[in-house]
């Protein structure tokens, strides 16, 4: 447990000190949302209607942008090999790295979402729910991205391949994430059932995805 926490702290510190990656993801998020009105037209009512979906899709893309880094640096400098031989189970290593990705990428993205929501005429009184749903749903994003990152470790064009492998798996997150918010904004029904589904998906992927990631990491060592 102590070792896992130390690993998590190391990864978070590395991500912040390395710089760049988080800023790039945030900038990408801003750019995607900012160019959407040029494609959809400046009608504020329309933008408010598509805002939940747009914010979620842009968040998924921005999170994927940095997902191939989850194991990449440690694979390149050999520290992943040492972690594999160390006392920690590989699944715990994978879990801690995915969690570090969540803390350093998904949380900042979710916190930026309200500002972007204002650009899209998103109703202000629903913004707390938007951030809450994103914070609750994005662990699934990071942990599933961890599977993709471990499968594509060290391959050519791994970023594009990662997106092709992982995006279909994000369909449930996207559906329940968006329906939580649109139920709160326009109805019908309460936002809590899809919100609870979102929690369930996140919890299930936090438990299951590290096992798949660890198995995938082992295939790349032989």
């Amino acid at each position, binding site marked *: 447990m102590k070792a896992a926490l130390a690993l998590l702290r190391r990864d978070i510190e590395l991500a912040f000190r390395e710089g760049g990656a988080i800023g790039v993801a945030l900038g990408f998020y801003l750019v995607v949302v900012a160019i959407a009105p040029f494609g959809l037209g400046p009608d504020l009512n329309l933008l408010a209607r598509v805002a939940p979906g747009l914010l979620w899709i842009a968040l998924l893309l921005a999170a994927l942008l940095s997902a191939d880094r989850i194991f990449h640096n440690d694979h390149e400098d050999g520290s992943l090999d040492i972690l594999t031989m160390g006392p920690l189970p590989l699944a715990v290593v994978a879990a801690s790295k995915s969690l570090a990705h969540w803390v350093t990428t998904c949380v900042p993205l979710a916190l930026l979402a309200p500002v972007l929501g204002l650009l899209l005429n998103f109703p202000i009184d629903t913004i707390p729910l938007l951030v809450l749903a994103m914070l609750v749903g994005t662990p699934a994003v990071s942990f599933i991205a961890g*599977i993709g990152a471990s*499968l*594509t470790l060290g*391959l*050519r*064009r*791994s970023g594009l*391949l990662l997106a*092709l*492998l992982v*995006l*279909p*798996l994000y*369909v*449930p997150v996207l*559906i*329940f994430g968006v*329906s939580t918010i649109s139920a709160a904004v326009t109805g019908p029904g309460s936002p809590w059932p*899809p919100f609870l*589904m979102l929690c369930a*998906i996140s919890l299930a992927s936090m438990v*299951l*995805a590290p096992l*798949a990631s660890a*198995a*995938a990491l082992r*295939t*790349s060592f*032989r």
Partner: protein
Amino acid sequence: MTFSLNNLANPSRFLSFAGTVIPWLAALTVILLVIGLYQAFFVAPVDYQQGETVRIMYIHVPAAWVGMGCYALIAIAALGTLIWRHPLADVAAKTAAPIGAAFTLVILVTGSLWGKPMWGTYWVWDARLTSLLVLFLLYLGLIALWQSIDDPGRAGRAAAILALVGAINLPIIKFSVDWWNTLHQPASVFRTDGPTIDPSLLTPLFVMGGAFLALFVLLHLIAMRAEILRRRVRVLQQTQVAQAALS
């Protein structure tokens, strides 16, 4: 020779088995296809509501059975690769993916051709269509992963993991998409209270189902044989290169 999966684990034995089975299976496929297509296009009655377009169903529904069953086959083969290290499981999964993708594409294309006269549009974002589209994307992801990894052993294991992740996710995707939107008709053939389709339509449907199943197994056996031979050629080439480098 007793028939068992362990017996077929030896690639040479599998090749001779495939060699004897393929001609018979090809004949069976042709016969079933001829009977099924004849019944579907000339014998089966025209639907009072859907008119002639009902005949698309005889391609669409069997393709759907095979296209979805194929993913189950890949998932089982993935277990075979990861747990039992069955030497042919990896070959079976790898060669099944493009065939499954092709059948899924047939489902999507025939479905949208049927949808144009019936629903007035080629594509609707209905739950079943959407989850099949996601299935198609999963097939594409599997194929892309196999293409990107050079070492066949690693490619097989990585794809097996991805296939299992997809197999766990498919019910969740199906459920969430159902939640999201639904318009497609509910299941009408396999129901606990018996099918709701008239027998005159059902017989050609099952013949076509048998034909598509035979077609799938035939294509799969041929593809597996080709893949085994391809791997042998690869090993031969590698030994030749190694010998040339040594001498």
